[in-house]
């Protein structure tokens, strides 16, 4: 085992993060469907869990993340506390943002969750600024901008990658290519076969990787993180994945060919990693059950916390607009 491949404990860590994402997703989904907690909007990241789980094995709270509306997997992988996350989804005062941001704007600077944007393409320009601050301060913090394949077609992608490369910023552009932008399939919206190829236009490395393969994803992320920490500049990663639940909750998601989605669902990456850990003897059933029980308990507690958290006082309506109120 060299340090360019994940150790058994790295893989176990990736599984723990991915399982936490998956189980939260199931509970968010159930809460949406039942109306429990009054969650008003939700974008499921199911199918994409491994990407941030493997990435965040390389990051600490000091590293910055800028994610997008479908970004709860990124936030959970980055270590956001579940109680505050659930309370935010429920629009309660104990939420990360006092219930004022909601699912599309979750923010938690203590864990490096700096911005969540609801604007496609909005994450990349801001990530450059965070990375620029780190560069000026001479620390080795890394900033990750995550976005989807659709965002690679917006002008902000071009402006941001060009600037990041010129300035050698310690930033990673992590494109989670789930093959569909809202309701438009990849090939109908994107003129190139591979988004990673676009890196050549900016004179930066472009890595195309199976984002659902924890080893490959971990290795790609490591290369990019190490490069950024060494001060050598940005990397574009195109992590291939699949969006299991459609764009919106209740979305019929009828854009796929015969058997295409079924095949992707059959390769659900979270149970696949579990299988892999067991079959390779990297973990035993008891160990995994213990991890899973701890995650489930944490989620139960988070839901209970959100339920008992008060609604924001109406005075909150007009505060936090400006420094003066």
């Amino acid at each position, binding site marked *: 085992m060299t340090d360019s491949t994940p150790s058994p404990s790295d893989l176990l860590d990736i599984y723990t993060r991915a399982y936490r994402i998956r189980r939260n997703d199931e509970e968010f989904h159930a809460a949406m469907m039942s109306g429990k907690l009054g969650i008003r909007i939700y974008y499921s990241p199911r199918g994409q869990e491994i990407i941030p789980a493997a990435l965040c094995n390389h990051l600490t709270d000091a590293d910055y993340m800028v994610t997008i509306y479908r970004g709860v997997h990124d936030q959970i992988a980055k270590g956001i506390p579940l109680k505050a996350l659930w309370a935010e989804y429920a629009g309660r005062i104990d939420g990360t943002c006092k219930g004022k*941001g909601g699912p599309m704007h979750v923010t938690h600077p203590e864990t490096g969750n*700096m911005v969540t*944007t609801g604007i496609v393409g909005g994450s990349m*320009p801001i990530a*450059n*600024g*965070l990375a620029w601050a780190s560069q000026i301060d001479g620390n080795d913090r890394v900033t990750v901008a995550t976005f989807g394949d659709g965002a690679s077609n917006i002008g902000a992608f071009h402006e941001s990658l060009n600037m990041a490369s010129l300035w050698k910023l310690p930033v990673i552009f992590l494109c989670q290519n789930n093959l569909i932008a809202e309701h438009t399939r990849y090939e109908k919206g994107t003129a190139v076969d591979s988004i990673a190829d676009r890196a050549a236009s900016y004179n930066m490395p472009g890595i195309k990787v199976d984002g659902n393969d924890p080893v490959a994803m971990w290795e790609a992320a490591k290369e990019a993180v190490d490069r950024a920490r060494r001060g050598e500049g940005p990397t574009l990663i195109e992590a291939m994945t699949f969006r299991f639940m459609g764009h919106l909750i209740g979305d019929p998601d009828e854009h796929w060919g015969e058997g295409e989605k079924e095949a992707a669902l059959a390769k659900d990456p979270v149970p696949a990693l579990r299988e892999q850990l067991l079959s390779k003897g990297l973990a035993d059933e008891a160990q995994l059950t213990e991890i899973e029980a701890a995650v489930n308990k944490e989620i139960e507690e988070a839901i209970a916390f959100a339920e008992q958290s008060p609604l924001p006082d109406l005075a909150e309506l007009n505060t936090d607009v400006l420094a003066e109120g």
Partner: protein
Amino acid sequence: MAKKMNYVQAINMALADAMEADENVLLLGEDVADEEGGGVVKVSQGLSAKFGTNRVKSTPIAEEAIMGAAIGASLVGKRPVAEIMLMNFMTVAMDQVVNHAAKLRYMSGGQTNVPITIRTMTGAGGGAGGQHTDMLEAWFAHVAGMKVVTPSSPAEAYGLLRACIEDDDPCLFIENMPTYWTKGEAPVPGTVIPLGKANVIKEGNDVTLITYGRMVMESMQAAEILAENGVSVEVIDLRTIAPFDAETILNSVAKTQRAVVVHEAVRPFGVGAEIASRITEELFSQLKAPVQRVGSSFNAVPYAQVLEAAHLPTPDGIIEAVKKTLD
């Protein structure tokens, strides 16, 4: 004789003093470093030589990336001053300004804030036509979470820009291009003019002229002519357009009972509409005449000199509006 200075010199001095006072103050924008000329009209000349190209950074022509870089750095302790060369180019950066800079404090429940200053120049009169000289301040004043500031003299440019840079919220600082080289009293170094406070430039009893930026000059000319005709005009320079100093305006209009709002921006849906409405809401029964608005005509800024001059408000137009309140 007191020392004189133009806007370019005063703004340059404000930037230099702010950078000297706080190492977190950064500059970025197209051509701002000395190698690229120190800014298209040399506002930032000498600053990269003094503070280094790490802190004074020339950028590609990429307004969205400029704004994002400023916002991101501001989230973690920096105080970037982003130059968007011309106000019309703000349109290219609108997503970052409106959806992000203005709203991150609120959407994060106060966990983060965006202490950036956006410097931008504009103003018609030089024949630049329809895409280089618009006054778009009302767009930004309409977004909660933004401050919009514009000076009416070099000394005010210094003091207000220092205040914007020290402020913890995103400030849009609008500089008037045609008057850049007009001299005024030199600023006193270190003077910070508080945001949100208007300045009563001239006291009077018959009518209040509420204005800002370059139109302060036109309004003062109108006030002088009116004085010769026995009309006593009070002139208020807003300095901060958003949030505006309602108290100073209302106190003045309560006294004069007549008001005219003057700005270079086109009239419909403008700052004048907001202020006129506020005055009417608060002082309706005390007003002796409807509040008048003076602004540019509602069309793109034309190129031909004769048309451009007809487009812009003039002292004569202001006098005419004042007379309407006196009839």
